[in-house]
Every structure is written in C-alpha cells, then in structure tokens.
C-alpha cells in the first residue's frame, strides 16, 4: 500500500496535492483496492464550485458506487479527461495518471484539517484491524 509523503489525506480516502492556489484531488491506493475494478467515473463540469465535504465525483465499480468528497472547498479548474476512456487508470496509478479534479481553493486554512501521510497510514491500519 502506497502513501506518498507529499500528499494530504482525508478519512474518506481522498488525497490532495497542493500546487500553490490549487489542489489536485484523487482517491488513495487503499480506496481503489477496496473498490475493485473501476468501470466508470462521473466528473464534475469545469467552473462548478464545491464546498468541502460535498460529493465531487462518483466512481462506479461493477457492483457499487462510491462518492468522492471535496477535501477542500474550491472551484473546478480542470478534470482528467483520460478517465472517460480509461477509468481503470484510477486502479493502476491512483496518485499520478488517475488524478480526478483540479480545484482552485477558496479557503486555504482548510488544508490544516487534512491528514498527513503518516496519520492517514495509521488511520488505515486501524480500519483494517476493525475489519
């Protein structure tokens, strides 16, 4: 299981990579593993704004749908068009080519509420133990 150090995480298994005023968002390796083969991704339209915690993206596996929540509030600046043709990229490269949305952040202090890689790794270990 992969937990890149430079990223921030949420307890709902989203990751955020901060690039100045922007945050690139996706789901973690743990999440993609739990979901199984991803068959479809519904991405938001550019220009739309989302509050932290609202559903940003929905991800379909064969038998389930998962909601991806905005880790910070922001406006959609870009979405990963590749996922329309290759949703499986999320399984293959969740932190790289499987990125989902680039948000222009509204309220940077929200970042402080996110978890570090270590904290997230510990959280995942707890979740697994609960089984």
């Amino acid at each position: 299981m992969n937990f890149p150090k430079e990223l921030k995480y949420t307890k709902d298994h989203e990751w955020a990579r901060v690039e100045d005023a922007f945050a690139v968002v996706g789901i973690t390796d743990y999440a993609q593993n739990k979901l199984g083969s991803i068959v479809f991704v519904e991405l938001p339209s550019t220009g739309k704004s989302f509050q932290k915690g609202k559903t940003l993206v929905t991800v379909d596996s064969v038998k389930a749908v998962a909601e991806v929540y905005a880790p910070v509030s922001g406006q959609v600046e870009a979405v990963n068009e590749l996922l329309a043709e290759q949703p499986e990229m999320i399984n293959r490269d969740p932190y790289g080519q499987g990125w989902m949305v680039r948000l222009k952040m509204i309220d940077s202090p929200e970042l402080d509420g996110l978890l570090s890689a270590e904290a997230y790794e510990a959280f995942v270990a707890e979740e697994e133990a609960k089984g």
Partner: protein
Amino acid sequence: MRYIPNAQDDWEAMLRAIGFEQLEDLATVLPESLRLKKPLDLPLPLSEMELVEHLRLLSEQGTGGKRMVSFLGAGAYDHFIPAVVDHVLRRPEFYTAYTPYQPEISQGTLQAIFEFQTLICQLTGMEVANASMYDGASAVAEAVLMAQRIKGRKRCLLSRAVHPEYRRVTSTYTHPLDMRLSEIPFTGEGITDLEVLKRVLNEDTSAVVIQQPNFFGCLEDLEEVTRIAHARNALIIVAVAEPLSLALLQPPGHLGADIVVGEGQSFGNALNFGGPYVGFFASRENFLRSMPGRLVGETVDQKGRRGFVLAISTREQHIRREKATSNICTNQALCALAVLVYLSTMGKQGLRELAEINLSKCEYAKMRLAEITRLRFSAPTFNEFVITVEGDLQGILRKLLHEGLIAGLALGRFYPEMKKEVLVCVTEKHSREEVDRLAEVLGKICGRQGERGMAR
C-alpha cells in the same frame, strides 16, 4: 395440496430434526397477540376441474361466449398472434425463471433481452434501448423524469394528442417532484398545434412529448416538432403506442428524437383486458447513464466465449438505492420475449406487409364510414381515425353492441369537447365483411334516428 410436496411423514421427520413438535409450533416466533385465532374467510378450495369451469364462466360472462366484433384501439391493438409466440413463452425455462442475476445459468433470458434491445433500436432508429418498462404510459413518465434529470429544468410540454392515460400517468409520477406539465392543444386537422408550441416553449422546458401516430391515429410532422424543440435546447420525446406504424414510417431516431418510448403490446401480446403489456424505452447513447431500467450487455467469459450479462447496474435501485435513475426492478421480461418472438417470426418483409394490410383496411373503413358519418380530422392516418356521429351517441353505441358490434372508443370521456366523436381502429383481423357490416348497421341506426350524417 399438490403444490406442497412435503406430507405428514416428511414433516414429522423434519420437525424432529430441528427440535419442534408440531407444524403449528413454527408460528410461535410470532407474538401470541398477533397469531390468528380463526382461519381466513376465503372460499373453500376448488378442485382443478371446478376451478377451470368457474373461470370459464367468468371469462364468458356478459358475452355468453359470443364473439364481438370490436373496432377498439386507443393504445391496445388487436393483432393476430402466430402460434409460435405462445409456444415459446410456454417453455418453462423462460417463464419460471427469475431475473438473470446469475448469468451463467440465465444466458437464454439474457441473449433474448439483448436481441430485444437490438430490435427496438432498429425499429426506432435509436442507439440504445433497455430491457422493457411496465407499459407505454409509465415509459413516457420515466422519459419525462429522465429529461428533467438531464436538463435540470422543471417544465415539460405534452401534446394533448398524446394518449390521455399516458398524460395522466406522467402527471402522477411528476406531481411529487415539483415538475410542471403543460399541454399543447391540437389543431382542427388532428395534429399538435406547432404555432402554440413555438410560443409556449421556453428556456425552462426540459422536453416536449409527442405521440406518433397520435391518439387520434393522425401522423405528426416529427421533423418539424424536433426542429422547434431543439431550437430551444429542449429534448424531444416521441411516444409510440402502435409500433407497427414504424414498419412504414421514418423512425424517430433518424429525425433527431432524443428519447423514444412506447407500447410493445401490438407485437405478440394479447389484449388481456389491459395487461400485462410491455413498455419500450430507447435513447441516444450519450444519455445512457440516465436511463431507467435494466440493460443487458455483451461480454466474454474466461475462455473468451461470447456471453451476456446485466450491465451498468450501478444506475439501478439495488445498488444506487435512493439515487437510482428509477425504482424499477421486475419489469415485463416475458412480454418482451413475446415481442421478440413475434418480430423474429414476422421478419422485415412480414412486418411491412402486415403494416400495409392495416393501412389498406383502415383506408377502406374510412371511405365506408365517411359515407354515413363524418371524418373528424384531415391529417393522414395509419390504422386509426376519428368519426363524428350525429345523434344520441350512447344510444347508437348501445344498439350496435346489441348487434355484436363495438364501433370504437367514444372520446367524450377524455375530451369533453368531443362528445360526438368515436375513435375507430382497423387491423388485419377485420375482414371487409365486418367493416361493411359496421357501416351498414351504423347507417341503418343513424338513418332510423332521422339524422343522417353528412356525407362528404
């Protein structure tokens, strides 16, 4: 108890094995206060022989088993069903099977649905079709809900020439969701008033619903309606109550329709006093994820052999629950199978030939009835048309019934301004003699009343 194999010896062994004494003890999981103290008040059971006799009498009640010659259409059409259809439907592996959730042992049902979906696409000219809806009316309702989901607008326009029950059902479905439905009137020619449509269509409209042929049997100018709707960025939903017409008419898909729905009953499903029928639902490919209902897709198994599975189920209730595109679960699979067998049997030539027979017979009936009554509308028709009858319509229809004739549907119950009008349907099942007889008897009755219909 021939449907319950286990008999006393069996129960006793089983009860012993699970630590109960009597069969009745199994009901002790129920609270004492709720357990019934007396038997249900139902008729004493009938033997098979008595049951058949009882039902036979019920089925003949009112007609005494005498065959009525009926010219009723209006969303339920009397076509001849070849023997092959019921023969296939009676295969137990088809009719006693469940929804194909376990594809390895349901390939029969799944391939059949795939073939059905394909034929609906071919017929309507659309890109994708689902496994069926309950009926034409609920298909229209679900199409309107789908259009609202896609466009995010609350208003929908329905032509008044769309089947009144389709409109009523749509109203029932949309009422709790705060959607506004408005009606577009029809012209004196019997088609939707496009001038009014143009005026009334605005940016708040998600879709326009039109029926082809419409409820009066008249043909609408689909191309023009589509142009008007698309000019305002609204979707066009075409409802088809008599899909046999599609054998001869340009498919709505080729004219730009966004969603095509309708009633498949004409193909292989008997009248059955109103049901079960079978709705079909087809749309453009880019609306796929908003579609209600089941979808069957092609795939391969581990050895690379072709197989079929339920696909894109994440739209449906068992996965998406309250966010599903619909609540539909059980649909009308066996009725869809009947459609498939019927269309496979008729084939491309048979269907076109049949449609021409229907058109020809109907034109003949129009000519005969125009001699004694008046044709209400001038627009071209397929196998239904409206006549205006002078005099006491209810009395006339009663007299016809006495002669074993049902002239058609009196429209006053749906259109208050049309109290003298009757919707007449003619199919391949009506012989020339029967049409002549209707004309003669109707002529005599009207003549007897001293009020001649104006022959044009």
